[in-house]
């Protein structure tokens, strides 16, 4: 987590946040406060620090607002409430078949450029929400790779 408490994409990918929302509520409805408690792991004592809590909730709200912009979540009926969008749920729940996953993960390094090209082409051709989700997932992985090297 960043020192200023922001919920950056390198800390939690959109995929992880969507799954986290489903952990908190199977119907995919959550408020910023609930998500903040899960993300920051505030103890009972920490929860009494109104300033800290308020800042954390705002940071979560900001991240969710970006995810709304990308079509992954929608605003709920009440203030601070969020719901996973239909596409967000599909992207979270639908996995690649195991054989495809294994094939991709075992692609030798010398073929990685070709693999990246195909993934890139697929991203360009994808719909708005799916394409953005792909871009952000790649962004998450790129940031992690930068940290690792």
């Amino acid at each position: 987590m960043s020192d200023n408490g922001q919920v950056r994409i390198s800390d939690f990918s959109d995929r992880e946040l969507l799954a986290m929302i489903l952990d908190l509520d199977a119907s995919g409805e959550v408020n910023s406060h609930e998500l903040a408690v899960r993300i920051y792991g505030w103890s009972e004592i920490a929860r009494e620090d109104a300033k800290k809590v308020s800042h954390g909730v705002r940071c979560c709200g900001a991240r969710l607002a970006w995810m709304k912009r990308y079509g992954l979540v929608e605003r709920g009926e009440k203030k601070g409430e969020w719901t996973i969008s239909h596409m967000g749920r599909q992207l979270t729940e639908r996995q690649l078949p195991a054989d495809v996953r294994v094939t991709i993960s075992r692609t030798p390094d010398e073929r990685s450029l070709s693999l990246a090209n195909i993934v890139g082409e697929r991203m360009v051709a994808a719909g708005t929400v799916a394409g953005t989700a792909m871009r952000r997932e790649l962004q998450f992985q790129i940031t992690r790779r930068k940290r690792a090297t």
Partner: protein
Amino acid sequence: MSGLNGSLDGIIEDLKRLHWAAENRVSEAQAVLDQAKAERDHIVRMLKVGGVELEKETKPQRKAKRETAPKSMGEETRVKVWAAIHAHIERARPVLTDVPDSFTIRDLEELTDLHSSSLRNGIEILRQEGSLRAVGTVANGAPRPPMAFAPVRAYVPPATGDE
């Protein structure tokens, strides 16, 4: 309303005065800096005429980026990490009660002979691969509460390649 406007006008006037004062100070400081630079250049020229070699001001060199190989994990380590995760799952004590199979790295440390750094590295790689996901942070009162993880799907041994 007019009273309010009057007070706003007063505030704006004050701010304008402050702005002008600040600009004057910037101009004065710039003039002093320019003069100091001119004096420095003059002294440097005189020294050069006198045959004095001045050391060139060198900018601090940036440290060369540490070359490290991307994180990787051997097959044996991978199996051991998954074994520890499975052992934790069998204990049926998820760290987050609403997330089945959730664990922290500390939970796994008790269940494996892997070094802590290898285990941490392994978990990171599995997370990057999408086999594990971060599920939140455990509220245990620690200054830096630990991150919890959970498998995204059931583990498939790499040799079989099917689910």
